[in-house]
């Protein structure tokens, strides 16, 4: 966790309003360490892109301060911030060749011609487009354009690189390849990256830490494993990965454990974010942590279930069941050699650990 001394980028009490009536960013406090890969993840309209635009200098913060490398940059013009940016639609200049696009940030910095040429060549090699320098952006495929945009944002060795949903326009396979490529470039260059996306798997794959945005507020800031396995609240649990939720009332809470009554049945859970006995709570349980027909006494939570639907997905089978009053209970049954054969309409038992079931806010 970076402390305030070593924070490279720092949002302090930042608020943003467009119309003077509603806040799209509500009191953001966020520290980003040097060399970190931080992702702002959230549904559209959650304020993540606005934060990025404030950092880049295209939007002004209505209140609060933004610091970059120890200096307040609220009133620094965008071209003086030394921040590289990759845009959603790449924004490659269509009237210039690929090499000219890459040379642009260097030539506006009045660099010598020979050095520009050398740097452009190096940048093109980095993204494996060494032969494409004389092409126009329109002659390149989506993935190649993406690479050029990346190279252009890095060629002038900025202090910070911002990426605004850069892979949104690519197909699934290419997107995954590019995710690894961006991650490797980040590791090799040790550059600080702030990445905006609404795709949670992208965020989990690439980031050191992820800030989950909703409704103008950071809901949780944590590393990918923490985010997935230990969500702080119901929104994060629901937004990241697949999630079974039960809504019930807290009956008992001792030593970090609690009992929540759902549909008349008690469920043992980890007390993470509850208001106390008698309050409402949402239970969160990952589908892969549920065991079908468990051994006697292995789990404290064992309930009757009825199989409503089966979907064959190759490596696993997704079963939708009716459990404890909900018909949307999902179980991922691994397609192992000894997996239990389920059929629609089967009456089975399902069970899970107390530690896998987190009691969160209502």
């Amino acid at each position: 966790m970076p402390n305030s001394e070593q924070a490279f980028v720092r949002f302090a009490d930042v608020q943003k309003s467009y119309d003077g009536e509603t806040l799209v960013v509500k009191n953001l406090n966020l520290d980003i360490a040097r060399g970190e890969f931080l992702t702002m993840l959230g549904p559209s309209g959650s304020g993540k892109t606005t934060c990025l635009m404030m950092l880049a200098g295209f939007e002004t913060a209505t209140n609060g301060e933004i610091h970059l490398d120890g200096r307040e940059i609220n009133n620094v013009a965008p071209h003086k911030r030394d921040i590289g940016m990759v845009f959603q639609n790449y924004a490659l200049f269509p009237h210039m060749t690929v090499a000219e696009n890459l040379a642009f940030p260097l030539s506006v910095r009045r660099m010598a011609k020979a050095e520009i040429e050398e740097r452009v060549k190096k940048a093109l090699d980095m993204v494996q487009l060494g032969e494409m320098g004389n092409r126009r952006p329109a002659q390149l495929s989506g993935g190649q354009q993406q690479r050029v945009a990346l190279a252009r944002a890095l060629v002038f060795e900025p202090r910070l690189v911002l990426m605004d949903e850069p892979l949104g326009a690519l197909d699934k396979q290419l997107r995954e390849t590019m995710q690894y490529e961006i991650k490797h470039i980040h590791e090799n260059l040790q550059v600080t990256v702030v990445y905006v996306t609404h795709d949670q798997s992208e965020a989990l794959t690439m980031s050191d830490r992820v800030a989950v945005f909703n409704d103008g507020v950071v809901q949780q800031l944590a590393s990918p494993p923490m985010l997935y396995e230990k969500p702080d609240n119901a929104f994060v649990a629901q937004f990241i990965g697949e999630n079974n939720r039960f809504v019930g009332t807290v009956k008992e809470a001792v030593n970090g454990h609690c009992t929540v009554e759902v549909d008349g049945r008690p469920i043992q859970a980890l007390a993470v974010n509850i208001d106390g006995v008698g309050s409402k709570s949402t239970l969160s349980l990952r589908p892969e942590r549920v065991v079908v027909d468990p051994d006697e006494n292995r789990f404290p939570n064992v309930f009757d279930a009825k199989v409503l639907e089966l979907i064959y997905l190759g490596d696993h089978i997704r079963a939708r069941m009716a459990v404890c009053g909900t018909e949307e209970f999902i179980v991922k049954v691994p397609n192992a050699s000894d997996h239990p054969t389920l059929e629609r309409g089967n009456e089975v038992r399902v069970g899970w650990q107390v530690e896998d079931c987190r009691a969160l806010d209502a």
Partner: protein
Amino acid sequence: MAQATIAQTDAVTSSGSMITASGEPLKVSLARAERRKRLTAFFLVVPLLIFILITFIIPIGDMALNSVRNPEVVTYLPRTADAIQEWDGQGLPDEVVFEALVEDLREGMGTPAIGRVGARLNYEKSGMRSTMQRAGRAARQLEPPYRETLVERDATWGEPGTWRVIQRESSPFTLSYFIAALDRTYDDEGNIVQVREDQRIYVQLFIRTFMLSLVITALTLLLGFPIAYLMAHQPARIANLLMILVLLPFWTSLLVRTSSWIVMLQQQGVLNDLMVLVGLIGDDGRLLMVYNQTGTIVAMTHILLPFMVLPLYSVMKTIPPSYMRAARSLGANQWTAFWRIYVPQTTAGIGAGGVLVFIISIGYYITPALVGGQSGQMISNFIAFHMQRSLNWGLAAALGTILLAAVILLYYLYNRIIGVDRLKLG
């Protein structure tokens, strides 16, 4: 259970071309399948094609032909035209030619024929109209030898130059209108020379027309670019309002707009009154801003402004704001980003607007006629003059054809340099 089989038989004929499953060559089959579509498309455009042919292509072709057509001498003096072919151009022609002329004149008496030939020859050699009229009236009383009697009655018939003109114009097609349109003429020996200095007008006028059009195009670009930029970067509501303001002149009568410029610019007009009132100029120093080139430039710039703004606007609207942002984030200041990233992307609009305004202003007629005075006249005003007043249609057609050729040449150059496919008109 559904059964599906795809026979992997890429059938190929002996000559190596593909054939379809039913054994027909693939190309033949494709052509037949497409023919119906092509025919339907063709029949849909036939009415328009006919309309354009009748109202546009044929008239323009006819006008262009008028500039070289030369029927008068051949039609009305057929014998003379025939006989004079043998003449070597030295001294006077033989008696045969004179006899042929008198016969032609006798036949033409009482018809408009002699008047027409006279008018035609008068373009080439002044005084020929009356010479022909007099000869026509006298033709009946003339007696052989005609050579002596004709020369005796009118010395013009004794000049070899007269006969050279007749010989030259006795073919059904001529270049003399084009030669006249370029301020050239034939001297008595038949060489092409420049006309007297005080009679040279058309070359000067072409140059002036091109210069004025260039100035007007540059001014519309200068004024139109900021307007288009503003329109493209405002929310839809304000952009629509601006668009109405730009189009407002379009919906007002051209005559009204031009006349209001006279009211604004004349010496006792609003602008001069204001400047005198403010003390910028004295009452005796009122500026001449209309009935000269200034008037033509001001009024035409105003009228043609929408033709520049609309293509610019349509191009600018498609430039996403992220380009400017990208340029800024890469380290360019506002001006560099605008000049190196924004402006180059508007070239299609600048080209379209420029070509449009330039071509329209080259042929503009009504505004220069009303506010141009002497120095603000353009080539089209002289074309109209020859069509309506002097009735020298041949010369009008030649001037028009030169103008058309210049426009086509410009368009060709534009296509070579910038490319017409990059033209964006809206």
